């Protein structure tokens, strides 16, 4: 038996999977921010009550957590010091010297995690090729370590210029720091991620150092508590890159688990796309505050080398701290059930990107919210049932929502009430569709062939409208959409991604030397996995980040495993051009190409997951699951029409029904438009296809 535990900002979700029995149990409780392991222990006890004996029988606990990201956002990490090359203490503060808001002269920049007085320099210098220009002054390094000790530094980051080509100086500094500050933890850039570009690498190393002590402490405590309640299996932590790793490795490199939580949905999406053989899938997870999406091509989600955390302006690219570690290619935009609707400065309707969140939440929650939100509109459109929200455990305030939209949207805009209500729903769909189209196009995909997979509380409510705007032919909604994403914990491979920069032109690269480099990375990857207790054959996937000489960014190119020295230079060049052309529509075969980063993913084969199937019911009809009829708004007819309401839990495998329909389950509601057709498969997934053609058309 395995259990996946996702500690989110508001809720901690549990999914217990009995591989042998093909059974799933779920549980949800409030997160305990002071010590998240409180909720974990309580939740496991609750699961034990649901499935007696489950804790003792557990082989694996797979854990995703927002602990690290919250510590960064709330600035609750360790007192951190930085040791860097003489002349470069301000790299962390200078950043890339670009203003993220071109017209805003008051745009605030993120405060560096290490202030200037704790950024100290050592005399040493490596050249770009890794050779030593100035040897490390060890006596000075020792003095610097002592100075950090006097500054009460608890965690030390070491990032020296050009160290990705030669770790000797960083390793020496690490040894000295360990001697001088035996209690402090140390993060050196060569071990965190040896990639070219000093600002990005320094920022990443510093962030790792900043969260390392608290992550170590938390994971140690969690292991002890799990052991205390009789758990004898192994603890795994979800990585931002979509693999899982041991608690030990996560504690060493906490910067790799920042996006631990949201990644699970993507991994679940990957699994579904394999299971159903859907080559192009667009995962769409819409919650209260944001919508997160990801394109899965050929069963694989993209990995990007860098992302930002702790943005000063949440949806402004460039306003956060840069983290250069592999991360699943997620797109996040400010579109959720709590997104606030208002009249914009231009006198038009604006929805989001700010959100009423869970507190105070939408007006209809009746918890003090006064600004109308997407959820308020969804309620008034008839998509949500005021009496059956969260399975009826929360009554919704219809009148309040009405007043809010009338007062804050319809009146200020001077439009009829229903136009305002529908406008809110339709505009947030439009916002998501526009972002999705860009995301898909940038990855060389085509929105007209993707299958949309909807997750999250608000996802299934908006998926129909989104799919139409994308021109996507098909939509799937897994059962328990909230839990659907947590299934990703069970399908994530035990994997570790390694990167090493080595900038060299393709034309003159020494291929046997590159083979050595790849081999070193693979050995290191194997060691990391073995240290975490991995048995069995380890698989390696190699790729190179390459670019035209002089270009500012790189294109990832998968390369075959096996001796690199035997590869054909021209063939590699052709592969690069093919990939570049796929992404950007054209290529420039006459422009020389260079290699920048060499990547290896070391992984164990994924343990197969067999999704539990629904019990077959001969002669079952969709009509058996009908709860009644409800008038809900049709975006096509522009009026309220009668929708058939189905109870998702009573829908038997194999049945089908047509729109207009509303399918209700505890945590979410699925909308099927009048020209849609839905089918329930053996796993309880809803498959919805539109009979209409393409996108919705306003009057």
């Amino acid at each position, binding site marked *: 038996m395995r259990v996946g535990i996702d500690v989110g900002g508001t809720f901690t979700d549990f999914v217990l999977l009995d591989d042998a029995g093909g059974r799933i149990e779920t549980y949800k409780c409030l997160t305990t921010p002071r010590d998240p392991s409180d909720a974990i222990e309580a939740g496991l006890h609750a699961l034990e009550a649901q499935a007696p004996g489950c804790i003792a029988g557990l082989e694996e606990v797979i854990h995703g957590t927002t602990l690290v990201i919250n510590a960064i956002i709330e600035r609750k990490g360790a007192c951190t010091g930085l040791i860097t090359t003489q002349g470069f203490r301000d790299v962390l503060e*200078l950043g890339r010297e670009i203003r993220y808001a071109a017209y805003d002269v008051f745009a605030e920049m993120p405060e560096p995690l290490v*202030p200037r007085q704790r950024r100290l320099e050592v005399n040493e210098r490596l050249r*770009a090729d890794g050779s030593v220009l100035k040897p490390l002054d060890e006596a000075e390094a020792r003095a610097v370590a002592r100075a950090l000790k006097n500054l009460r530094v608890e965690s030390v980051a070491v990032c020296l210029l050009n160290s990705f080509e030669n770790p000797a100086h960083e390793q020496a500094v690490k040894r000295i720091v360990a001697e001088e500050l035996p209690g402090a933890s140390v993060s050196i850039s060569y071990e965190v991620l040896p990639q070219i570009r000093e600002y990005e690498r320094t920022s990443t190393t510093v962030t790792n150092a900043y969260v390392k002590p608290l992550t170590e402490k938390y994971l140690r405590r969690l292991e002890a508590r799990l052991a205390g309640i009789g758990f004898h299996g192994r603890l795994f932590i979800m990585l931002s890159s979509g693999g899982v790793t041991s608690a030990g490795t996560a504690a060493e490199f906490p910067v790799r688990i920042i996006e631990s939580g949201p990644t699970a949905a993507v991994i679940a999406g990957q699994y579904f796309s394999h299971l159903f053989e859907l080559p192009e899938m667009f995962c769409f997870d819409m919650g209260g505050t944001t919508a997160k999406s990801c394109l899965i091509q050929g069963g694989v989600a993209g990995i990007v080398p860098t992302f930002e955390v702790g943005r000063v302006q949440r949806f402004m690219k460039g306003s956060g701290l840069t983290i250069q570690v592999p991360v699943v290619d997620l797109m996040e935009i400010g579109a959720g059930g709590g997104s606030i609707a208002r009249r914009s400065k*231009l006198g038009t309707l604006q929805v989001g990107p700010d959100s009423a969140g869970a507190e105070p939440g939408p007006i209809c929650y009746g918890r003090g919210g006064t600004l109308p939100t997407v959820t308020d509109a969804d309620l008034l459109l008839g998509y949500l049932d005021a009496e059956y929200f969260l399975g009826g455990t929360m009554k919704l305030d219809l009148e309040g929502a009405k007043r809010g939209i009338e007062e804050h949207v319809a009146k200020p805009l001077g439009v009829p009430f229903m136009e305002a209500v529908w406008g809110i729903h339709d505009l947030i769909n439009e916002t998501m569709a526009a972002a999705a189209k860009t995301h898909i196009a940038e990855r060389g995909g085509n929105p007209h062939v993707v299958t949309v997979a909807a997750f999250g509380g608000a996802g299934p409510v908006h998926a129909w409208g989104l799919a139409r705007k994308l021109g996507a032919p098909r939509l799937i909604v897994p059962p328990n959409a909230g839990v659907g994403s947590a299934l990703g914990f069970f399908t994530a491979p035990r994997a570790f991604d390694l990167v090493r920069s080595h900038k060299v032109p393709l034309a003159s690269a020494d291929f046997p030397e590159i083979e050595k480099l790849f081999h070193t990375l693979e050995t290191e990857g194997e060691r990391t996995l073995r240290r975490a207790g991995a048995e069995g054959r380890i698989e390696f996937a190699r790729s190179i980040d390459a670019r035209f000489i002089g270009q500012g960014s790189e294109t990832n190119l998968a390369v075959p495993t096996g001796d690199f020295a035997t590869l054909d230079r021209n063939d590699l060049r052709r592969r690069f051009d093919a990939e570049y052309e796929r992404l950007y529509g054209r290529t420039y075969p006459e422009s020389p190409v260079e290699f920048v980063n060499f990547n290896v993913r070391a992984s164990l084969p994924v343990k197969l997951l067999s999704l539990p199937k629904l019990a077959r019911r001969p002669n079952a009809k969709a009509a058996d699951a009908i709860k009644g009829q409800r008038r809900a708004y049709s975006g096509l007819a522009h009026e309220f029409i009668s929708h058939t309401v189905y109870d998702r839990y009573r829908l038997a495998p194999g049945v089908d029904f047509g729109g207009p329909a509303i399918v209700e389950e505890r945590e979410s509601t699925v909308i099927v438009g009048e020209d849609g057709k839905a089918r329930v498969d053996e796993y309880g997934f809803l498959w919805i296809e539109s009979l209409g053609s393409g996108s919705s058309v306003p009057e």
Partner: protein
Amino acid sequence: MALGIRNLVKRLPPEAFRPGDIYITNDPWALAGHLNDVCVLSPIFHRGRLVAFTACILHHSDIGGRVSSDNHDVFEEGLFIPLVKLYDGGQLNQGVLDMIRANVRTPEQVNGDIRSQIAANHVCAEQIAKMLEEYRLESLDELADEIISRTEASLRESIARAPSGVYRAEGRIEQTEGSPDVLIKCEVTIAGSDIQVDLTGSSPQVDWSGNVVYNFTYAYVHMAVKSIFDSELPNNDGTAAPITLVAPEGTVVNCRHPAAVAARMQIGHFLTEIIYRALADALPHRVVAASGGTPATMQVFYGRRGSGEPFHAVLIRGGGMGAGAARDGEGSFIFPANGANTPVEILESDSPLIVERRELLPGTGGAGKCRGALGRREVFRVPDDQYAPLPPVQLAMQSGRFRLPAEGLFGGEPGAKAQFLVNGKSGNPYGLTRLKPGDVVVMDSAGGGGYGNPRERDPAAHARDLAEGKVKLGSDSLVPE
């Protein structure tokens, strides 16, 4: 750009455009102010009707000519492409392309860049047509009018809330050693929801490449107005409508052909801060003091490695932002333009140069109730060991603030000046510098101006500056040693 394109397409009757036509030009007076900015312009047709134009301007790193700021006319500065058809009804005009390729040093790169511009226009045209299809529109006119008029109304509302009046400021901009400073006279009139910027009385055009065409002047006047009144508005004709610009022809802010224009940012970028200064009394909370990142600074190092292999490294770098009424200047940036620096590790792998320092310069931010941001130092060494390049290594640059610092506002002090040293001695930043192995170049960018009386500075903020080493202990000196 919008201004330029509108005037360009008016030169031809609408019926002159056919599907598949693609025009190209780099006329500095018609568009973006110097020859490197090449524009590719395409008409967009929908159901056989001309519905819009799309244009893409890209700064080409090479357009031929003599690359330096001390040219005397535009003919020296490279290839001038008037508005010509690159494609005629879908057919490539090979002669035009050959002409361009024959006049530049890196024909492959220029060709690749032009092709990427064509691709960008193609994508834009395709998406516009798709949108028209999706919303069943015959043309964009009604939609565009709606967006533009709402934007205009919003900006006007914001301008109308400012106190009407006539506000004046002057700016002095340094030139090459021995030449008098350039004077910009600026009179800003806010009348209801209209704003007029009159630059009458500014210096006549100059004998080097700092001249600014009307469009470029307009762009940085627009930047000032938009950033003051509403930085979040979308960019369209609506944000331009309330602004009137008066810039007499023959002055440095509206130069006549064939003035040299390549380094137009060295003067043009100052327009934004001069307008801020003019409006500071009327709108003290909306403006910032002058910035060390004005004008944008660019250095180009080029030469050959020891192996004979050529290198060419273009670097831009920021200076300290000016302070505002409520906040210290924050960050080292180019302002009012924008752009990212080149990582040291990338520069060192692309060239033989060694960067010895890239760091903030304590004490360079102008003192004030709010302090200007610090300037920064970068030190380059040309290696003289086995990694030495072949002499000479050429260094060309565009920069400023060597003699005249970024001024403060309301009693705030100026930031420290920029500095350019070669082997410890002042170099000539306005000429081409020849370096040899062993040479060390120091580039200090200017600090930002302070805002308000330094005596009113919050002691806690000052203590923090001291702890971080951003100001110097017991010293009012703003000049770095």
